[in-house]
């Protein structure tokens, strides 16, 4: 099958790749570019672990052809942190224990990041609805929802902050 040269805009950098038409965006990210943050789990658009942002919207990279992503601004979990400095959302995930095995985390982060960009002040229902397409089999979601709420409200709405737990980022400040 004929190979196609393609320029993808990934995390604000143009990247040249040589792909087959049947390569999904996820395969190109992981296998061609070593951006292995995005994970493949179900491969059929159910679990959300492959979520990346296309023009700021969360989409499933396992069901997006790489060819279809040409011309779009692609953002993966690798693009969230600034060097070694984690984004406030990532920081919040760490401090709230929202990461256990970590497999769903990149997808959760990308979905939550897109939500926070659109709605910087989401309530719990909004967060739960936004994350409803991301499956986590470890945390039971409570910590993840807390972490997202906390990223948006550094000073309040954080039960850990209220109880003065040391693990919480506000307590550290």
């Amino acid at each position, binding site marked *: 099958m004929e190979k196609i040269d393609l320029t993808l805009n990934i995390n604000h950098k143009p990247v040249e790749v040589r792909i087959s038409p*049947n390569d999904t965006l996820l395969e190109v990210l992981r296998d061609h570019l070593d951006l292995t943050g995005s994970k493949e789990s179900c491969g059929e658009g159910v679990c*959300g672990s492959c979520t990346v942002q296309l023009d700021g919207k969360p989409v499933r990279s396992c069901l997006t052809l790489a060819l279809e992503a040409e011309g779009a601004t692609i953002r993966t979990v690798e693009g969230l942190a600034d060097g070694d400095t984690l984004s406030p959302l990532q920081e919040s995930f760490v401090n709230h224990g929202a990461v256990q095995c970590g497999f769903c985390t990149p997808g959760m982060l990308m979905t939550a990041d897109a939500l926070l960009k659109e709605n910087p002040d989401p309530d719990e229902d909004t967060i739960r609805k936004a994350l409803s397409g991301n499956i986590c089999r470890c945390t039971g979601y409570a910590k993840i929802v807390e972490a997202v709420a906390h990223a948006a409200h550094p000073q309040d709405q954080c039960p850990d902050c209220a109880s003065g737990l040391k693990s919480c980022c506000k307590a550290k400040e």
Partner: protein
Amino acid sequence: MRLPQFNYTGPDTLEKALDLLAQRGPDAKILAGGTDLLVRMKKGLLAPKYIISLKALKDLAYIKQDKGTIRIGARTCLADIIASDLVQKEASALSTACERVGAATIQHFRGTLGGNILQDTRCFHYNQSAFHRSGRQACHKDGGKICYARDESDRCNSTCQSDGAAALMALDARLVLASKGNERTVALTDFYTTDGIQPFAMEPNELLTEIIIPVTNGKSSYQRLAYRSAIDYPIVCAGVLLKADAGKKDTIGEARIVVGAMARSPLFLAKESAELKGKLLTDTKAFQKAGNGAMNSASTFAVHNVGATLEYRCAMVSEMIIRALKEAAQAIQA
């Protein structure tokens, strides 16, 4: 899971897309959002030689009001339909149905209305991996002569689980199908064959371009039952349109009842719909009767092939219809 190989083209005008379809028709598949097509290709249910992507056809994504109708481009993504005040006001059943498809933030930016209507019929004996299917004889839809869902059935009984189609049928929508040098409009109620293998009455060289919804003074409602709201297809759904009588405002002038996810197409129940005419908008007994009638009619078509037991799905038909009728009646009275 790897996709099978194919040739990809992304025509930038409708004419070019229709040209390609005319040349390659049966060997080609249209890719809009890909949330149905690519999954089927990954499972080896489908291996088209050519993929024609609608990515560059931005002209097919719009929602506009036009002479007593709402016209929606087939490539309009579900998120835009959910966000549309026009659709919410004039065709709330469609708005609700789109909102219920898949996961809120993810599916909606890729999934399109056209793709939702044209999603293939499903059956848990058929929508399985190649490995699973290799362990037994092929079913009708897989090219064989057996139906695992209904013993000794001579045809495929796969189920249409489209949310959008059930809502649109209640709203009496029409579809615009374009082919090279030709265009035709077909009512959604006439769009289905009774064959699960080829569920849609459209030619391989035709492209769904537009969905036309008549604007009436009626109110609509869509109700859906699924195991996990963000992941699963509906196991039963109902779309309802109610119009108040022109003379007596508290009476039903016209009703359209549609049951979805119970057969090879959404079922428009003409008898139950007609019986509601002249009934009061508050007549819950009439709603109950319509629900029971719908349950009996729909049970004839349903087979055990989409998850929950058949008995449960049949029992829930009436509940979905009653809820939808109540919601639509309340919206009229409000």
